[in-house]
């Protein structure tokens, strides 16, 4: 992994994680993985070094989507599943801002699945962090796209019986160029990945295993299952997809880096409006 402690040239102020805390009290349950993600994100933003007012955190709906208000950054908490689209518009209009989208597995992979695919394709320069707990927590425990097929729940007795969605493989296949997995229980490692993702020129995607202790208490064991895997694959999408399909979902680190160019910044004005109006004139 790259050394991310050095700040970029335009990030001159020394910042601490607390500079990014809003002081608002999260609604999350005690033991929720999202606390670790929030802590890791605040550390990462301090490491990155751009002040809170230059950062915008965009989210949809769900437990994890409450995150923007817990930071001291600009932010927007919109409708379910559309955070990536909102963030895309914001970044295209305001390339000077640091745009980070956050949300959960239901928000990003189910109702927002189409936007996930197209954000990977479009390659606008922003970071997308998904806090994946493999359950709809806000609505009290329904299986999400990443839930194991045999997980028993009230709405799907005996299990949903569907093959889980593989976000990393989909991201690589859809054209993402920075694809990584982190764990909420290791906020320092998460912070390193987040800084790298923020500084990545183009769309960066980090899937974070973020346990839901309330509806998925068995996820408490995730901390024993995760392992670091430095076998990052460069450019070979087929190999990266094969690797992400083959692993058990607990390898942490950057999975894939590609070289596809990011969407370019908008052009400078080259004509006044009066020039544009001239095309409509007829007659003398």
């Amino acid at each position: 992994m790259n050394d991310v402690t050095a700040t970029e040239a335009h990030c001159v102020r020394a910042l601490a994680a607390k500079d990014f805390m809003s002081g608002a009290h999260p609604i999350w349950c005690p033991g929720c993985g999202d606390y670790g993600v929030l802590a890791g994100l605040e550390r990462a933003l301090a490491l990155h070094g751009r002040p809170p007012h230059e950062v915008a955190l965009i989210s949809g709906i769900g437990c994890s989507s409450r995150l923007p208000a817990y930071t001291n950054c600009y932010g927007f908490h919109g409708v379910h599943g559309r955070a990536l689209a909102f963030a895309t518009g914001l970044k295209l209009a305001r390339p000077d801002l640091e745009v980070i989208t956050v949300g959960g597995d239901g928000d990003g992979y189910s109702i927002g699945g189409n936007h996930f695919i197209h954000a990977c394709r479009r390659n606008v320069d922003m970071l997308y962090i998904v806090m994946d707990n493999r359950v709809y927590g806000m609505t009290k425990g329904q299986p999400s796209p990443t839930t194991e097929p045999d997980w028993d729940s009230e709405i799907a007795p005996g299990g949903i019986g569907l093959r889980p969605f593989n976000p990393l493989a989909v991201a690589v296949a859809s054209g993402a160029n920075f694809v990584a997995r982190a764990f909420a229980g290791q906020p320092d490692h998460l912070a390193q990945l987040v800084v790298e993702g923020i500084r990545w020129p183009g769309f960066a995607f980090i899937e974070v295993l973020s346990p839901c202790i309330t509806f998925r208490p068995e996820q408490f064991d995730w901390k024993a299952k995760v392992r670091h895997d430095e076998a990052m694959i460069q450019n070979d999408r087929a190999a990266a997809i094969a690797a992400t399909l083959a692993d058990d979902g607990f390898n942490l680190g950057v999975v894939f880096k590609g070289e596809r160019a990011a969407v370019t910044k908008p052009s400078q004005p080259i004509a006044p409006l009066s020039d544009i109006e001239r095309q409509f004139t007829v007659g003398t």
Partner: protein
Amino acid sequence: MTAGTVFLRAAAQAGYYGLMTQLFGPQVRGGEAAALVQISTAPIECQPDRFDLFVALDWDKVEQFAPEIPLDQSSTIISNPADGAVPASIAKSKARLISLSMNDPGATRLDKALRGKRTNMFATGVVAGLVGLRAENLRIALAQVMVGKNVDVMEANTTALAAGIKAATALELGFKLEPTREMPRWLITGNQAIGLGALRGGVRFVGCYPITPATDLVEWLAPELQKLGGRLALAEDELASINMTLGASYGGVPAMTVTSGPGLSLMVETIGLAVAAEVPAVLIDVMRAGPSTGIPSKTEQSDVNIAIYGSHGDAPRVVLAPMSVGDCMTTAEWAVYLAESLQSPVIVLSDQALGQAQAVVDPGLARPKPLRRRTNGVSPGAQFKRYAIAADPVTPMPRPGSPGYQWVGEGLTHNEVGIPVGGAGAHVAQINKRAKKFDQFEPGEWWGQTWGQGDTAILTFGSSVGPAREAAQRLTGAGRPTRVIGLRVLSPIPRQALAQALKGARRVVVLEQNHGAQLYRHLLGNKAVPVTTESIARPGPLPFRPAEIAAHLA
């Protein structure tokens, strides 16, 4: 369509006003089509009761257009003898038939393949000759329409045009127009006019998804936005396009999305978000016949309900409608100012009839005064409250990047700071705050317009204003004084201006092109018109014609 465009442009060159309506088959992607062109010495703002001249380039699938091309015994049909007899759907008009060979008899198959059949340019020459346009006007118009074509094609078309003009000299049909003076005018479609108005208003970001009949609007905008340093994003669907639009707007850039009914249906949830989070956004709905896929290429005014009321919860917003092709410019520019100054979604209901009509209009229409977004005015030192309850319901929304004012736009019921809360107090306070913006909204002179003073009032909007005005003129001329009230603001209802406009009217009729009388019920339900008000409401896609309206009122 090229034939119609060249003819209309040549007439505009010569100083005539004109309007061209395009008819396409239902399949959108091309194929059979008809161009309906009207030329006059006075501005034209509606389709006519009948056409004088029908030129058939071929008879392919003409029956599907016949109801939209009214002909009668005094009309004239020109067709190629080689194309066979006039189909029954057209022949039943009993119009006079003139057989005229419009194909070049000397053209080989290779000629035709290389340079086109050119029947359309020959026909354009015939029509231009019949009405008395000069060859010079046609030459300029052709060069403008064919810009970028190779020399061979240009030459072949010029030759065909000249041949057509010559052929017309042998016909004496009495279609010569009164002479007119060349005047600088604009030739523009309603969709282009909306796009230009939005650019004038300051829109520099557009999020969109292709949909007929709105696609040509964004196709026109894309390169023009780039010239101005703006950007158009082609989204993956309308859910994305409206959310991209809100994202750009949150970033401080005036933003717009462009769609038609099915797309607007998909956007409805996010309209509620724009209301709750108070984010400016302009939504253009170029209406088409619905519901569901309906008739994508044909017009209807049936999205009034969804535009005004579409959302869960209490979600007031501004809904506007342009009253003519030229007015598309004014209304779109004003829409941007209202969205920005009220921090609200503003929906503009255009329709296919306006959007895809090309009209000769007078430039230099009055423009609304710019209104800007309130981004400052925060007292220093105090905690910034994005959604403060204050005397002015429009509260500052600092641009992201401004130090010290970080705020989170929020779709959940929130307190004054913007933090989600579940209690009744904040919910009611914020609903009242947002409602107050619209209660206080005063559209001034831009509310709409009244024409005439008769004691019968036709109250209408959008593309129905034109035929209503023509009908009112005829009724007034026949001794039944009739006024027309066109509403540019459909919601919130401009009560004072409307009451003033209705003063002295003994009979009020609301005219609209949908089956459910959506505008009538909106106005009546809000007690904005007398209980005795009548309704003329019928679905599209056929346009209202002046004679139809006059007959209703007689």
